[in-house]
């Protein structure tokens, strides 16, 4: 589904990702953990084409994300190609990024109508189902500003699902929420993960959640994958001292 091939990302002199190689198979739920600034979020942003790779290639479903195949030779991707590639992948942001000028229903239907070319009826039908799934069918006409953080994040999840993505990127989706709202959103995500075959790539600081839902956990440090293992192994018997230290620090805080 997703493959990083010798990917390097630098911002000026700062190297955020160093020669990164990994792949994610379809249907997998992979959590990325590690200290702040270790490059986890950058991976999601690269996949969403919000940033460009400095070196290397990212493949999504076998196709390179930054280049397109034109008559057998690779040329830099144009906007049309990028928009096509983005349709495969949905993203939920830390700060929700709902459109404050649109009501809940419009937030969810905007993408399907404008980029998938669905009819308004079809899009609204689907949106209502999704909003029911996230438990907000009574808020269709509310504006994002009238909702709690937890509700806004549910709308954002429904909005990402409405695009019928095959891959979902979750960028610290509970970090901006009040503690009492976190559990609900995490439960929702677990339900979705269990009931669909969407591939998830999830940056999180919720270690219990990572342990419960993921098929694989990748520990990042300074732009490298320090450890890549099944959750049981990584959380109980990590290979690296650095991982152990990080887990201790996070668990102590919680």
């Amino acid at each position, binding site marked *: 589904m997703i493959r990083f091939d010798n990917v390097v990302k630098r911002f000026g002199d700062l190297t955020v990702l160093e020669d990164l190689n990994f792949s994610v198979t379809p249907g997998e739920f992979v959590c990325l953990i590690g200290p702040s600034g270790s490059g986890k979020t950058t991976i999601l942003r690269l996949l*969403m*084409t*919000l940033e460009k790779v400095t070196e290397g290639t990212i493949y999504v479903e076998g196709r390179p994300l930054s280049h397109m195949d034109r008559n057998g030779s690779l040329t830099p991707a144009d*906007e049309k190609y990028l*928009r096509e590639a*983005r*349709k495969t*992948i*949905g*993203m939920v*942001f830390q*700060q*929700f*990024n*709902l*459109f*404050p*000028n*649109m009501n809940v229903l419009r937030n969810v239907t*905007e*993408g399907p109508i*404008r*980029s*998938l070319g669905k009819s308004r009826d079809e899009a609204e039908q689907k949106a209502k189902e999704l909003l029911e799934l996230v438990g907000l069918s009574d808020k269709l006409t509310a504006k994002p500003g009238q909702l709690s953080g937890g509700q806004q994040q549910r709308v954002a999840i429904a*909005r*990402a699902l409405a*695009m019928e993505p095959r891959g979902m990127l979750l960028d610290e989706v509970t970090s901006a929420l009040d503690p009492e709202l976190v559990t609900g959103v995490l439960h929702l995500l677990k339900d979705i993960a269990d009931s669909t075959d969407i591939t998830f790539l999830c940056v999180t600081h919720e270690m219990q959640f990572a342990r419960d839902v993921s098929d694989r956990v990748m520990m990042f440090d300074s732009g490298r994958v320090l450890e890549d293992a099944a959750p049981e192994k990584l959380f109980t018997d990590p290979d690296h001292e650095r991982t152990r230290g990080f887990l201790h620090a996070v668990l102590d805080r919680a």
Partner: protein
Amino acid sequence: MEIWRWDRFFEVWPYIGEGLVTTITYTLLGSVVAYVLGLIFAVVRQLRIPVVDQILWGFIEFVRSTPLLVQVFFLFHVLRPELLSGTGVDLSTQRLIVGTAAVGIHYACYTSEVYRAGIEAVPRGQWEAATALSIPGMRVWTGIILPQAVPRVLPALGNYTIAMFKEVPLLFTIGVLDIVFYVKTVFASDVGGAGPEAWFAAGLTFLALSYPCSLLVRRLERRVGTV
């Protein structure tokens, strides 16, 4: 000569009334030009097209740094004969076109700055969410960015309309029949010279209209915030 004549102070009002409609018309039409053109300037500059961006920036800086009066002269005495003289458009319409174009373009160079700040105040996450949903570029502007940017810039745009209202009178120099023209020319020839009382009345007229408008803008500012 008497320093202050109350009779003249009262006589001048009908003349001011005649010119006021013209002044307001030019202000409103000029504002429409400034609002639309300023938005176009701001969006084009946001696209950061090489060369176009630098040229537009230079034009905006130049217009903002030079007198509207001279710009009006340039448009009326240089460009108008070239562009409008042979078209069969009568002279008063030509004045309307040149006058609204001059104030409109001049103020567009200010409103573009207003819009730019409004656009930049829209959080980056909004652009990113639009990208994540693959929403086409045009729709991102019309559906997401501008609906958020425009309400916030309304007070500042209002301020520029008020400023324009007070600057429109200089169009009397190209024969626009506004308040200043009526006082300086029509009233003066009817009574033999416009004295300080007539100008005081004209000033009061501007104050009576612009002051309540600025109070309204300030209230709007408190409601929608500033950029």
